[in-house]
């Protein structure tokens, strides 16, 4: 009887109960403004049925939130790590780091002594650039963005894939020219290196081409040596060869350098050297 005095009629009380029950979920979540909260609280304090409903909702949420932790039947870590090791290019090293490492190795050593380490770095620089870091990042980004429904800004990794065509050419050319100039032990080999680097600048697989340039320059030097000796001997024997020697030598170096670079690139890509 006491609670009925708060309402002028049963209809009014009923409509207030509906109004309160419609707001119970937001009341539970703390999403209502202060005035509405006060109104709901006042009604709950006098309406047994609405209070019972609210109490049950609260108990329901509490039961769900205190559900016991479900332990996995087995340790998933070994299977996960095995799968990760099996997938290609699981390393996150930046492709540029790989290319730089290859170039540095080439600079620090004689061009003709192309080591397995150099070749591996050069080829990995290409392979990981595509399959590993870059593709992994982009694929993962797509997965997360799609699932999360959030358009994230793409990660700006230092990948050749990210650069524009002109930038790729410029980076490839600069790296290859520097490599050729510093690594070649003579200006003749440097010229061949520069020629090969020009070709390198036109392609996207800078790591392979840089390696090829160094290898080609070195090989051309070896081939040009006997020719130079022969031409010098001929010059002594026949004075008329003197005027032809620089042009012939340059042409010879150009042809052999380009051929060697092409050959080396093909072998490098095939992984046979």
């Amino acid at each position: 009887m006491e609670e009925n005095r708060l309402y002028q009629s049963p209809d009014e009380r009923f409509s207030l109960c509906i109004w309160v029950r419609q707001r119970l979920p937001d009341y539970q979540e703390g999403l209502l403004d202060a005035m509405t909260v006060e109104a709901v609280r006042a009604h709950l304090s006098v309406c047994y049925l609405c209070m019972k409903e609210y109490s049950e909702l609260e108990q329901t949420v509490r039961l769900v939130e205190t559900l016991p932790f479900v332990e996995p039947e087995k340790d998933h870590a070994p299977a996960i790590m095995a799968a990760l090791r099996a997938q290609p290019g699981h390393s996150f090293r930046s492709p540029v780091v790989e290319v730089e490492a290859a170039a540095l190795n080439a600079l620090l050593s004689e061009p003709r002594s192309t080591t397995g380490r150099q070749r591996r770095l050069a080829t990995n620089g290409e392979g990981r650039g595509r399959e590993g870091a870059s593709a992994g990042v982009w694929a993962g980004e797509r997965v997360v963005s799609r699932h999360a429904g959030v358009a994230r800004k793409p990660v700006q990794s230092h990948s050749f894939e990210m650069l524009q065509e002109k930038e790729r050419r410029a980076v490839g050319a600069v790296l290859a020219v520097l490599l050729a100039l510093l690594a070649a032990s003579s200006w003749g080999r440097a010229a061949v290196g520069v020629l090969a680097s020009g070709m390198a600048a036109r392609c996207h697989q800078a790591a392979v081409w840089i390696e090829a340039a160094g290898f080609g320059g070195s090989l051309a030097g070896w081939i040009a040596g006997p020719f130079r000796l022969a031409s010098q001997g001929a010059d002594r024997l026949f004075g008329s060869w003197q005027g032809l020697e620089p042009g012939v030598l340059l042409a010879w170096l150009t042809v052999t350098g380009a051929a060697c670079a092409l050959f080396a690139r093909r072998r490098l890509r095939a992984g046979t050297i």
Partner: protein
Amino acid sequence: MEQTDAVLVQRTLEGHLEAYDVLVHRYQRQVHSLVYRMLGNAEDAGDLVQETFIRAFNALASFRQDASFLTWLYKIASNLCIDHMRSRKSKGALSLEFELEEGREPAADRKSSPEDTVIRDAVGGIVHHAVMHLPAKYRVVVVMRHLQGMSIEEIATQLDLPAGTVKTHLFRAREMLRDRLKPVLGMEADGRK
């Protein structure tokens, strides 16, 4: 001294796989619990836990270091669960949309594992069963809200739904749970007296 998640993520990005192994050991229980609550099937849960960590590894470079790694894993896991529930149609089960449209209960708990049996033995088992038999779209929001502790806005963003829809789903889910848990609620009320 235990390394933080940020340090382990950074070391993983530098190519140290053993750092990621530590992260997997640290969080596989939490991810498994979440996935199991969503799917109600221990076998599928195991597969999705592995898939979650593999996808997280492949997308690790996109992880923001200032965010919580566990929350990030939860996002990947819950989205995989949603995809998995949607793909049930192709495996001969009812699709998520069909279940939703028809108001039918999802095909959870089809296989009974020892894990399922143990859970059902306790009061928690009754609650678990009630959650598992919610329609999929309600179950997802209940798990995200009450087990992951996500806000309504976060759920709305993740599920690409309006916040109002999420609130409606949550409200209806609680109503359904309350009806199904009446006996347990009565026991709890009796216990208080």
